[in-house]
Each structure stands twice: as structure tokens, then as C-alpha cells.
């Protein structure tokens, strides 16, 4: 048992940290978040060309780095910490995972190579405009016309949906319900009948879009996996993405702790730094407890995700590990955000300080891919029913 980063993993983490500290400053985040794309294309191209992060867990045969999920989550943690505005989560955690689990060799060769080369970003559009994490929440439909498929409907909460070059769309066969009849399609964003609009949301650091599908005609080569049987695969993709998102939540929680502690050491009231008051220390201690426990949950989940992708024996724990991580990390991030704001006092309520960016991101992340209560219920279902 060796439940710590290897030297190489530690190096990847450290490199991510120092790179992001330089490029994803508060100023850079604030510039990017008001762009309609939500990110600086030049920075994304720099990440793709210099860091090659988009290729992190793509197998070497498709041009990727062939690293594992532990490395991916280590990077996500840092991205969460520095609020990186880039289509990384959408392209890698949603897009690449979908392609790795659902696509055939030919499709992988085409799309993964393009992603590796920085020519293509991707995202996953699965739920309807009301959001949700369940099979029932998939509302876009498809029907078969000869050899072709025709997609109709609207997908909501599509991360980076406005800019992604490739939309991986989950749709259900007309008339189907529940977990049956679901298929996954690779839909280039410029396909006729696809229209996209920005969905304005509270968290400005991650862009959402609605995607309308009107008589979108697709060929067999656009279908990922067997028609009508995509739910178990999609379910796994969502769990893998959930684990990556939880890692990002850990990074955010850590940053909130660090900034709150730093501020409390500088802020003097009653002739002493407020960090010397137990009322503040105890809040900070609880924040640290949550960060460390959240990190432990994510490390475990990352090992499980790794084995899921590589066919190890822990693969059977994917659902539980993802739910444990997401339930705990969602609460940890939001609570830490609230406490950080409180410790910052008045300045924590200003637009100028960064706390609100995390406070908003925490709530947004909490509700993505199922909130804490959702994931606790998923755990309850396994142990109680």
C-alpha cells in the first residue's frame, strides 16, 4: 500500500501549481470571465502546446501522454485552486472520458488526435434544460431514418458548450424511457441544425450553454457505441467527471483556507491579529479538516478511476467512490467558501477580493453532476435498499 503521490506525480502537481500561479492570476481570471468564450484562447493554446495537459490521460497510441487519473486529478486540484478559465474540464474530463469509454478505434483516432494537437475542444451535452444527473434527465431524442439518425431537442448546462468544437450528445430513442434507449453521438458543432446560446449563470468562471438540436442529421459514424445502450457507459463517464470535479473542489477549498488564514494573520483588530482569536482559529481548523478529508476522498476516488480506465479490481467501486468524493467535497467547498467570506469580514463582501469568485464557483460545482444530498442518497440506496 502506497497511498501517496509518486515522485513523478508530485512533479506533475508542482509543475501545474507553479505554471497556474503565473498564468491564472486574479487579474487573468477576471479578464477571461467576462469574455463570451470564458477563456483566453491564447492561454489555452499555450497550455496545449507547452504543457500538453489536454493529452494527459489519452493513451500514447493516440498521441497522448498515457498518464493516469491520479495525475489528472492532481492537476484538476490545482486548476480549482487557481480558478483556471480554460476548456480543460469540458474537453478532458467530459470529452476525452466519453471518447475513451464509448468510441471505437476509428473515432478515437480521429477525435483524440485532434484534441492532442490542440485543434479540437469537446464537451458533453446530456441533460435537458432543467439539469439533472439521471437517465430520466436526458430529454433530447433521436429517431432512425434508414442508416441515419435525426436528433431533436435541447440540452442544458453544457459546459463550454458555446465554444466546444465537438459536442458529445446523449439522446434517447423517441418513446423510450429510463435507462433504455439512450445513445451517444459525436456531433461536430458546425453540423446543420445545431444552434448554441450562452446560458448566463451566477458563476462567471465556468461558462454554460444551451444547445438546440433541430433535425440534426447524423451518420452511423457519428454514433458512439451500440445504439440504445449507452447509459451504463455514460453513467461511468459522469462518475469519472464527478471525481475530477471533486478534485477541483478540493483545490478551491484549499485556496479559501489559505487566503482566509493569510488575511487573518494580517488583519489587526483590538491590537492583535484576528488569527490569534480562537473564534477565528477554530473556523480555520475546521476548514483544514474539511480540506484534508476531502483530499483523502479524492485520492481514493482517483485510484478507483484509474483502475476503471485500466480494468483493475477497484473498478467496481467507481459509483461509490465518486459519490463519497462528490458528497463530501461539495459540502467542504461551500462551507469553506462561506467561512472564508466570514473571516474576511467586510472586504470579503467586495467585488475586489476574490472570495466571491470561489463562493460562486463552490455553489455551481456543488450542483453540477448531482449535489451532496443526491450523492448521499445514491450511497444510501446501496447500503439500505
Amino acid at each position, binding site marked *: *500500500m502506497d*497511498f501517496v503521490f509518486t515522485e513523478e506525480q508530485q512533479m506533475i502537481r508542482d509543475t501545474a501549481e507553479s505554471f497556474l500561479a503565473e498564468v491564472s492570476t486574479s487579474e487573468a481570471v477576471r479578464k477571461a470571465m467576462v469574455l463570451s468564450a470564458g477563456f483566453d484562447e491564447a492561454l489555452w493554446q499555450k497550455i496545449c502546446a507547452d504543457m500538453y495537459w489536454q493529452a494527459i490521460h489519452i493513451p500514447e497510441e493516440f498521441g497522448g501522454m498515457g498518464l493516469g487519473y491520479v495525475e489528472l486529478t492532481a492537476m484538476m486540484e490545482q486548476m480549482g485552486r487557481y480558478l483556471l478559465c480554460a476548456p480543460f474540464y469540458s474537453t478532458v474530463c467530459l470529452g476525452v472520458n466519453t471518447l475513451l469509454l464509448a468510441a471505437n478505434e476509428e473515432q478515437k483516432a480521429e477525435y483524440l488526435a485532434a484534441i492532442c494537437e490542440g485543434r479540437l475542444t469537446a464537451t458533453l451535452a446530456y441533460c435537458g434544460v432543467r439539469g439533472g444527473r439521471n437517465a430520466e434527465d436526458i430529454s433530447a431524442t433521436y429517431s432512425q431514418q434508414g442508416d441515419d439518425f435525426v436528433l431533436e431537442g435541447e440540452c442544458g448546462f453544457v459546459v463550454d458548450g458555446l465554444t466546444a468544437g465537438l459536442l458529445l450528445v446523449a439522446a434517447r430513442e423517441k418513446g423510450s424511457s429510463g435507462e433504455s434507449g439512450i445513445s451517444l453521438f459525436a456531433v461536430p458543432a458546425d453540423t446543420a441544425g445545431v444552434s448554441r446560446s450562452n446560458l448566463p449563470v451566477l458563476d462567471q468562471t465556468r461558462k454554460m450553454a444551451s444547445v438546440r438540436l433541430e433535425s440534426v442529421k447524423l451518420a452511423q459514424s457519428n454514433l458512439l457505441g451500440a445504439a440504445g445502450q449507452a447509459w451504463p457507459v455514460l453513467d461511468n463517464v459522469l462518475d469519472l467527471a464527478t471525481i475530477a470535479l471533486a478534485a477541483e473542489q478540493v483545490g478551491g477549498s484549499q485556496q479559501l483556507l489559505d487566503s482566509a488564514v493569510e488575511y487573518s494573520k494580517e488583519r489587526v483588530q483590538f491590537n492583535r491579529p484576528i488569527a490569534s482569536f480562537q473564534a477565528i482559529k477554530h473556523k480555520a*481548523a475546521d476548514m*483544514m479538516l474539511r480540506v484534508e478529508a476531502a483530499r483523502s*476522498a479524492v485520492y481514493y476516488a482517483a485510484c478507483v478511476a484509474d483502475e476503471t480506465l485500466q480494468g483493475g479490481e477497484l473498478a467496481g467501486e467507481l459509483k461509490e467512490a465518486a459519490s463519497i468524493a462528490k458528497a463530501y467535497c461539495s459540502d467542504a467547498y461551500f462551507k469553506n467558501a462561506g467561512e472564508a467570506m466570514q473571516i474576511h469580514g467586510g472586504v470579503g463582501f467586495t467585488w475586489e477580493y476574490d472570495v466571491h469568485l470561489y463562493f460562486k464557483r463552490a455553489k455551481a460545482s456543488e450542483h453540477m453532476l448531482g449535489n451532496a444530498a443526491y450523492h448521499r442518497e445514491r450511497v444510501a440506496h446501496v447500503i439500505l435498499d
Partner: protein
Amino acid sequence: MKLSFSPEDEKFREEIASWLKANLSGEFEQLKFRGGPGDEHMFPEERKQWEQKLAEGKWTCVGWPKEHGGRGLPIEQQVIFFEEYARAGAPGRVGHIGEGLAGPTIIAFGSDKQKQKYLPGIVAGTELWCQGYSEPGAGSDLANVKTKARFDESKGKWIINGQKVWTSLAHESDYCFVIARTDPDSKAHKGLGFFLIKMDQPGVTVRPIEQITGTSEFNEVFFDDAECDADDIVGEPGDGWKVAMGLLGYERGVSTLGQQMAFKNELDQVVALAKENGAANDPVMRQRIADLYLRLKIMRFNSMRMLSDSAGDGSLQKEALIYKLYWATWHRDLGELAVDVQGETGQVLEAEPYELTRLQSLYLFVRSDTIYGGTNEIQRNIIAERGLGMPKEPKW
């Protein structure tokens, strides 16, 4: 990062599991799942016999170096031992203070003579120990010890006077390790000594403390001119605090995973009860049960990190700093759930006049978890000061 145990470790797991299966039977069958927190007053004699049974199989002090009678097991196998021990429902160890605290301290700081005199009895499971730290005026402020140790030249012995409190197993113990003030003019953590004191002597009186459970696991211990051989001070007079704090590293260690297995057994009982009485269909209860379940899992992941991460130099990592606060709070929440899950029927006693059910006992006893061994508030101070570098309270 890797989570699997080696084939060699798994073989070891089979060895201990089958030993426990074969030996936790017959007269010891009744001890299964007994003697844990809140139940420590039960079956003391039988559990002492069990210590010796363990010793026969060489299953005491498994992490101690071989030269001191242990097995010298690597961390992974110690973890496996404690996990399997708890999984089998083997009883709460009456020897744990000797094995986990007194012994390691003597190994680290004791003289050769002390090692020869005390370690074999701990390994054999024949001599039990208790811990004499807290006093009426020294709880969270542990360094405020008032118990005095004066060296009597004519007798050639240390004479101990004072009172200790919250001493678990004192009435069953052969020895007590005590911090006492060797310099009467000293304050706080200076001028203390660390003494190994024989309990069976006229100067030592043990009085049980009646707890909120109505039972007694803890005691008060009074020293009235109690005697301690000149050879039985660990380190020099004045070193007491250093020696006592040296133990703290041992308190959070491999046994944490065994503790968690015991927690799992308790949670399983609550889950079974919820399924049986329909609480498992209540959405609020479902959330609470799942929350406890996943926080216990995380406790395990955190311990695995802690054990993998420890450089073996006693330096405490962040995930280790949070451990006490984390588990004590978890256990307290479990205690509440255990009673809440039963609804109104959870209030009904096992028997008159005041015999508690196991779960009522758990519900009450866990309130001590967030107090002893450093209250949650002290833990938060430690985390803030050592983990986050926040300043201490100004003195006044």
C-alpha cells in the same frame, strides 16, 4: 499511488484471521464485540485471560521490535492485524495502554533495566498499565500538574503525593505511568518527571468515577506518600514533559484502522436496525446514515494517507493533525444516530433500575470522545497553531 496489499501481506491476513477464528471460541466466544468504548467495564477477568491467550500466539505487541519481544511487523501488516482483530469482533484490549503507550515510551526513553523489568510483562499480557496524566486542575491545560514527587534520600525512593483523574483501567492495573512535579517551584511543562509506579501499595487508592452511563470505566487515583524506586523514573527529573509528549506520536498510528473497523461494526448495527424498523425508508435518516457511512470511509482513506505519508520520524502531517477531531466528531454523530434511528423506542431501557442497551450506552459514552485526549477545542487550537501557523492566545 497504489492501494493494494502485497500477496505476502494477504497471506499474513489469512494467518491472523484464522488464528482469531480458531481461538476466539469456547470460553472466549462471549467476549465477541465486547469491552469497547462504553463497554470497557465488562468481562475484565475474561479479557485478562484473553490477553494471555493472545500472547501465547505471539499476537501482543506486534509492532514492537523483535528484540523487545514484538513481531517487528511492517506498517502494512500492523494495519492488517488491527483490521482483522476488529473484524473478528475480538474484545477491547485491557493491555492496550501498556502495549500502545507505556511500552513504546520505555523502549524510546527508558533505561535497560526498565526495559528488562517491564517489557516482558506487557508482551506476556500478564501486567496491565494505566496512564496518570490528567488531574482535577490539569485537563486541557495538562502541564498544570500539581502531583509532587520528592526524592527521599534515606529511603532512596521517590515519594509521590497528589491526585490523578480519568484514569481508565486503574483498578485492573499493575502499574501506572505518572507525570509529577520534581521541582516544586517549577511551572507548566518545566520541572516534571515521568514515573513508573506500582499500583499495589498502601499509598495508592483507586476510586471509580460514576459516569453519565451509571457505570464506571474511569477512576480517580490518589497518591498519599506512594513510593517509587529511584530506578523507576524515565529520563531525568525535569524530562517528564518531553517523555510524555514523545508518546503522542504513538497514540495516532496503525491502531486507527482497527478502531475504524470497530466503528464499522457499530455502524452496521445501526444500519441493520434502520432496515428492520423502517427508519431506512425515511429520507432524512437515509441522508444521515449515508453521511456517517461515507465519512467513515473517508476516515479510512485519510488513515491510509497518514500511514503512507509518515516519514517515520514522528513528524505529524496535516492529515494526521485532523485525525482526533475527525473521528471523535464522527463517533459522536454516530451515537446520536444510533438513538435517533430507533425513534421513541430508543428511550426504553434494557432493564431497571438503569441498565442501558448497547446503543444507549454508545450514545452516552461517545460524549467523552470529544473531551478526553484533547477536547475538540484543543484539537482545533493545535490544528490552527501547528497546521496553519496561526498565533497562540496572548497570555494574561
